[in-house]
């Protein structure tokens, strides 16, 4: 999914970056920036932490770019960004803050009654931001390993095989983490049904 369009140009930029051309590297980073930033933001939960993780990731990527030997450069960068996110999360755990998310305990089973909302249509887009906020909180409520897989699969659209490659875990691990992550995110939404925009009540 993350393979680049203009690959011959990208190959040239990579070669230049590998010989120490920082400008070429920054051009590469610019091309992948939005996609990578979205991953970092969904994993980290806020802009400050996401920007920190991205900065660390880009520095690590430039320093290590000589070790990139073909394949998908986007996937290689994604791997470095997810690693930087793990590092940043570990660092944050060492100086913990009072977690707002701890207040939102999932206490409801999925068997609760519900009416299914339309996912398309004008109402959906009108209430998109409210829903986006709640979804973001649902993602943040997940354990790290599950959150990372969910972000790569359902936010970024990577395949199971690509995620296994990026995270260097067996494909069975990807499947089970994703399954648990989705169930858990769903349970979070059901538990906070009252926060869903009116027409979207589950």
């Amino acid at each position, binding site marked *: 999914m993350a393979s680049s369009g203009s690959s011959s140009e990208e190959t040239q930029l990579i070669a230049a970056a590998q010989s120490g051309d*920082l400008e070429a*590297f*920054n051009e590469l*980073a*610019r091309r992948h*920036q*939005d996609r990578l*930033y*979205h991953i970092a*933001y*969904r994993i980290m939960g806020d*802009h400050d932490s996401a*920007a920190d993780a*991205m*900065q660390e990731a*880009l*520095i*690590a*990527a*430039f*320093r*290590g770019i000589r*070790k990139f030997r073909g394949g998908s450069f986007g996937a290689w960068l994604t791997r*470095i960004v997810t*690693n930087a996110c793990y590092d940043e999360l570990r660092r944050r755990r060492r100086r913990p803050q009072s977690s707002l998310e701890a207040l939102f305990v999932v206490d409801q089973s*999925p*068997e609760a009654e*519900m009416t*299914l*909302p339309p*996912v398309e249509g004008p109402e*959906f887009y009108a209430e*998109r931001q409210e*829903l*986006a906020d709640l*979804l*973001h909180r*649902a*993602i943040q409520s997940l354990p790290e390993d599950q959150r990372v897989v*969910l972000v790569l699969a*359902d*936010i970024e*659209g990577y395949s*199971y095989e690509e995620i296994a490659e990026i995270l260097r875990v067996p494909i069975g691990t990807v*499947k089970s983490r*994703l*399954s648990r992550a*989705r*169930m858990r*995110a*769903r349970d979070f*939404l*059901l538990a906070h049904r009252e926060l869903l925009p009116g027409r979207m009540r*589950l």
Partner: protein
Amino acid sequence: MRFFPWKADEHRWVQDRLSLYLDGRLDPHEQARVEAHLRACATCARSWETLRWTVQALRALPPVRAPRPLVVRPEQVARAPQPAGWFRRAAWAMAAALILVLGLDLARSMGRAAPGPAAPAIEAPRSMRAASEGQVISPIPSPAPMFGLAVAAPTPTEAAPAAVEAPPSSAPLLPLPLLRALELLLLFGAIGLLALDRWRARRP
């Protein structure tokens, strides 16, 4: 399903596969089994619908853009090669020191081979004990007889008793075991620093 209590764990089996079913990653047999269950079980069907809704909503999340362009500034990576280079430079310095010490060692053993004023007599007593120990572990052919000459030569009357008391010294500057220890230290130090340098370079 409540009419088939022996199939109670069918719910669990299906729940565990809903995510894969959503991605079309079940084999045809498993897929048929999931679908048959979803047609028969309202609870699991509801679970399936909410799960599908959740994933659809996640996939429709609007992209979030970086608040500012993220680039690597030169000063952020200027320090990068420095530590790696430091290890390598230290390794080369150690290797150079090793060659110097080996040269001294060689020069000394050649000095032994050609007896004469190479070894000052005054130095001898101080390093005698160490030197004699060194000769035991040293692979170099023992130069003791010749050295006895060298030590005894300048002032026979004063130096001779010392030469008799203990085996003659071999070290004008450093006692032999200390020299050997220094050589080993420099050798392993250089190898270790080079290994460290490689290790640093390999890290992302």
